[in-house]
């Protein structure tokens, strides 16, 4: 990307969590829209079945990827996913998911994950764009909408010289405008629904032009969630994971949620 570009459209994908079915639908949607680039902000594995099915889709569609905490762990064959959970039940399910994903990710794909960058920067005119996984300062930091003050986001933007910061990691999309036209965007995830009783997943479309500036659109995406649930069960992964994709309500990783986000869910 150079300063001479006058307008662009970019797709930003959050955690895939081995949901290759949703990734496939997203790529079809993106193709129809027409974009100049596709980025994935990390966490290719977790929750879902058949982790190796994600990687050909990323390669064939030239998706430029960041390394999330899961990717660092799988790539380097660490003991756990570094997800940052503090609750024993959250960690129990995270470990099941992690052990399955590590055992079923090929050496070639692990090498790919190991070599990914932890941030990507580019400029759109004078706008400095920063893509990261959790936060600009820490890969596995959770930035929840209800637990993150605006002045903390201003601090991060100043400290990391960014006018538009994009992250994922929490699993829930959100956006906040900051001073001087800056902003922070959580792009959501393709991996699982948003704990709102809907089965769809989300990705983000960034559109920029020198004349109109930056526009952000969250795009909902329907996919074959029944098939995903069936495959989760076939692979012997926890029933709770299948229920999440079927119902749209999170059944695990609940204790990490701040009160406001927890209240919006069912469990």
């Amino acid at each position, binding site marked *: 990307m150079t300063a001479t570009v006058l307008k662009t459209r970019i797709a930003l994908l959050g955690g895939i969590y081995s949901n290759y079915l949703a990734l496939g639908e997203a790529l079809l949607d993106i193709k129809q829209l027409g974009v100049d680039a596709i980025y994935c902000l990390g966490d290719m594995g977790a929750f879902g079945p058949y982790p190796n099915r994600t990687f050909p889709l990323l390669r064939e569609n030239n998706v430029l990827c960041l390394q999330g905490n899961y990717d660092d762990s799988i790539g380097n064959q660490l003991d*756990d996913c570094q997800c940052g959970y*503090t609750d024993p039940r959250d960690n129990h399910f995270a470990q099941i998911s992690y052990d399955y994903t590590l055992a079923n990710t090929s050496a070639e794909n692990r090498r790919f994950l190991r070599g990914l960058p932890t941030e990507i920067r580019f400029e759109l005119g004078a706008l400095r764009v920063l893509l990261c996984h959790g936060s600009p300062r820490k890969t596995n930091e959770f930035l929840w909408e209800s637990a993150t003050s*605006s002045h903390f986001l201003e601090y991060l933007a100043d400290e990391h010289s960014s006018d538009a910061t994009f992250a994922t990691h929490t699993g829930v999309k959100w956006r906040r405008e900051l001073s001087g036209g800056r902003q922070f965007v959580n792009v959501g995830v393709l991996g699982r629904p948003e704990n709102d009783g809907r089965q769809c997943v989300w990705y983000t479309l960034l559109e920029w032009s020198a004349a109109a500036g930056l526009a952000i659109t969250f795009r909902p995406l329907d996919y074959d969630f029944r098939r995903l649930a069936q495959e989760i069960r076939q692979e012997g992964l926890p029933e709770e994971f299948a229920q999440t994709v079927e119902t749209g309500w999170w059944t695990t990783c609940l204790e990490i949620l701040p*009160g406001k*986000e927890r209240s919006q869910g069912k*469990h």
Partner: protein
Amino acid sequence: MTSPAPSVPLSHLDDLWFQVGGTLCNLTCNHCFISCSPKNDSFGFLSLDDVKKRLLESVALGVREYYFTGGEPFLNREMVAILVETLKFGPATVLTNATVLKDEWLADLQAAYSKSRYSLEFRVSIDGFSPQTNDPIRGEGTFARAMGGVQKLVQHGFLPIITAARTWSDERELEVVQKFVAMLREAGYARPRLKILPTLQLGAEEQRSCGYHELDRVTPDMLADYDASLLVCEHSRIVTDRGVHVCPILIESADSLLGQSLAESGVSFPLSHGACFTCYQYGAICSNASSGRSRAKA
């Protein structure tokens, strides 16, 4: 001790605490690490004006979230107004024994919370899943009174985080947690949130248990390959009526007072106390789970 205590710099002021209830409490728990009681006025209340000044001061420093403790914060008559004001600035968490909560306060707080983009968390201290296990620690009748407070919070639409100090053996942890969850569900709290904390062998707890041994200290080599962001002093400070201290646990230690302004308090702090050892051992003992600070990994 041959090694000097290692110093930990403040990487960024993420969490700003307020000793808003001073050391006054309507209860006299026998494990309280600052010996709060109805008669302990060594630290006083913070006023709404005190808190407002600090909130304004915190904006330029990029503070991420705010925590309120005591003593019992809700003995401070301005507590509701303080939380309402804080929710204009950022996420707020209040640590309470829930025995003095009033419906009209919670209605006002729910109204402010609904309008705010930020979370308002109540961390309710209950140290056993029954009167028989809780009351010997927190006082006669306190289990029933605290559970009454929990039910009020739930009725007003909050999801309180029940916080219990680990006064049982590690082997009993699973059983105790299960009994807590079952008790809370039976009381009408359908999806209970629970935070288990280590005890800190200070204040009243020093009398109850044995206090820290002189070898219970953090040494420089212990910080090698250690994620220092788990230490409270690495990302927090606390305001009391005396000034700004290093962390909520050590306010009674003279060396904990670091200055009068938040900016002045951003100095390194030596981990020279026994309580620093507990903080090191368990990590993130004061933070909410949503901060993602985890003892294991990372």
